[in-house]
């Protein structure tokens, strides 16, 4: 095992898969040798694999994804980067009407092995157009898979699975996780889709969390332990497919669930998880389902405003206490 950051783990996945399979190539804005990606994920890859396979593009999100789709349906494995997740809105037709639907619409004739990497998440004071968490949009789109890694281990393993797979994957990265460290194996490994990871075992309450909220949930669980509450933290790792059985198993054990996500509450990821628990495990619940999510606002700029809307340890602990008592 070795220690690495999410950023480096992602780069390793890209590098290893590009070495392994020459049909893998990258495209996106400023991902090449002059910048190496806005968050540095692709730094050094253009030098190693050349400008043809690490391809800087014009500022044309729709064509970045459209070109990715065209290449994916003609025997290539493109990995497209959208610099900020909010900008995926510019490419929604290509993501949701083309990449996601092509296989189905054409009766299963073709596969679309396209990976779309993009960072979501607030907390770095860059306001509404660079901070939102929109994973629910893509979870709501049949035909796409949605990966939401929270650790270097998951980031590398899930990205490898995404690149090797034959389905289009919307691969979410969280800006604040890029420098976060963790252990990964020296040797090649993958993380399967649709298999949740219990990041911490506990008995009294299940905390479902994704992306950066996993760190906050773990920190909250640690504090709760001191107050005699044993919290189990379940990280789905992919929202589509969703490992319902691990979530339900945990809820059936603890009888309580607090769902923590960074997207806004209405129609969000937390709503889907709550619905599943209500549909399939209601009789096991000892308390109402609780959701900790962002309020229904765009992400504001000023630090006190921004910090107010992002779920934090305190809000998680408060929700857990309301559930447990």
């Amino acid at each position, binding site marked *: 095992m070795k220690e690495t950051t999410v950023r480096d783990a992602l780069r390793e996945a890209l590098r290893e898969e590009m070495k392994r399979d020459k049909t893998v190539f990258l495209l996106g804005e400023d991902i090449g040798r002059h910048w190496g990606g806005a968050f540095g994920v692709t730094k050094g890859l253009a030098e190693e694999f050349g400008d043809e396979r690490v391809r800087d593009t014009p500022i044309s999100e729709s064509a970045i994804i*459209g070109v990715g789709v065209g290449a994916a349906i*003609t025997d290539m494995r493109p990995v497209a980067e959208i610099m900020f997740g909010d900008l995926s809105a510019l490419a929604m037709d290509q993501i949701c009407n083309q990449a996601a639907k092509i296989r189905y619409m054409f009766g299963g004739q073709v596969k679309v092995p396209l990976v779309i990497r993009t960072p979501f998440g607030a907390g770095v004071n860059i306001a509404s157009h660079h901070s939102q968490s929109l994973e629910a949009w893509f979870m709501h789109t049949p035909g796409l898979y949605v990966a939401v890694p929270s650790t270097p281990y998951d980031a590398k393993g899930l990205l490898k699975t995404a690149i090797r797979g034959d389905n289009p994957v919307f691969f979410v990265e969280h800006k604040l996780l890029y420098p976060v460290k963790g252990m990964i194996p020296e040797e090649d490994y993958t993380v399967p889709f649709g298999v949740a990871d219990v990041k911490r075992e506990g008995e009294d309450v299940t905390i479902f969390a994704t992306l950066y909220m996993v760190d906050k949930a773990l920190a909250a669980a640690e504090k709760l332990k001191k107050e005699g509450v044993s919290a189990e933290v379940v990280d789905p790792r992919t929202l589509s497919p969703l490992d319902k059985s691990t979530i339900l198993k945990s809820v059936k054990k603890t009888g309580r669930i607090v769902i923590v996500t960074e997207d806004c509450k209405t129609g969000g990821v937390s709503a889907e998880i709550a619905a599943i628990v209500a549909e399939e495990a209601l009789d096991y619940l000892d308390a109402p389902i609780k959701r900790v999510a962002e309020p229904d606002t765009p992400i504001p700029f000023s630090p006190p405003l921004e910090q107010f809307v992002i779920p934090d340890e305190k809000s998680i602990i408060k929700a857990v206490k309301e559930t447990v008592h």
Partner: protein
Amino acid sequence: MVEKTKLIEMYRLMLQIRFFEEKVFELYGKNLVPGTIHLYAGEEAVAVGVCANLRRDDYITSTHRGHGHCIAKGADLGKVMAEILGKKTGYCKGKGGSMHIADFSMGMLGATAVVGAGIPVAAGAGLSTKLRGTDQVVACFFGEGASNQGTFHEGVNMAAIWRLPVVFVCENNLYAMGTRQSLVMTIENIADRAVAYGIPGVTVDGNDILAVYEAASKAVNRARRGLGPTLIECKTYRQKGHSRFDPAAYRPKNEVEEWLKRDPIPRFKSKLIEMSALTEEEDEELRREAAAAVEGAVKFAMESPFPEPEEALEDVYVQEESVSGR
């Protein structure tokens, strides 16, 4: 000079498309076609003139008005008709219908019903051939309306900067649904837009198949030699309305009459007879064959079963071992 056999093959394909579309029109008059239909009748010279320059392993992308593109690229008439009727034996097993026919076995990368969405996809297929080091070419069909989409700008620009082997074929039939071109652009020739991307742009009479063929021939050769994309604008006209229930009352009567006089099929026939490449008897025989092929397709489609309702749940994802929970 194009060989005689090739000319006759092009003429045959034009007849095939026309007869096919007339039959589709007749079938939906009898309520046998679910949904809507966008007929290609009147625009045959474009698809056939372009595809006559393509190899089987070359690619095309198509639009909501796509039956003609499929047939010109070599699609099986029965499977096209079956798809239009929503049958299990259709190209897409009844999941796509008239607006979404694809045949990946012969480079037909599918029709998109989102106007302009196929343009970046075509550029992507072009990038793929370049990265794989093949000399395949992509022909991208779209209408003049699509040239107002952002995807046109983004896709053509990307193809231009990377010198991708794509031939952008704009079928300018003057109307984006009911909106006349002059209401939505100040220019008359879409080909003028090529200047903005530093690529060749040519305007041709899209109802003159030899003019389309020549322009496409140059563009395809250019693309195959790695010299980059070309924008070809083909001025043409759809003989029917935009879609199923459209009587096209927004088109002046004299305009329709003028364009009907320029019907690409009789024009090509006269030319072929003038060139002594075709006789009236041969023409009749070709028409009989085209009609028989359409009848065969209809029979196949009509006799084919509808899909089982539960098949609606299939083909969303490729099934993979690395994925559980599905």
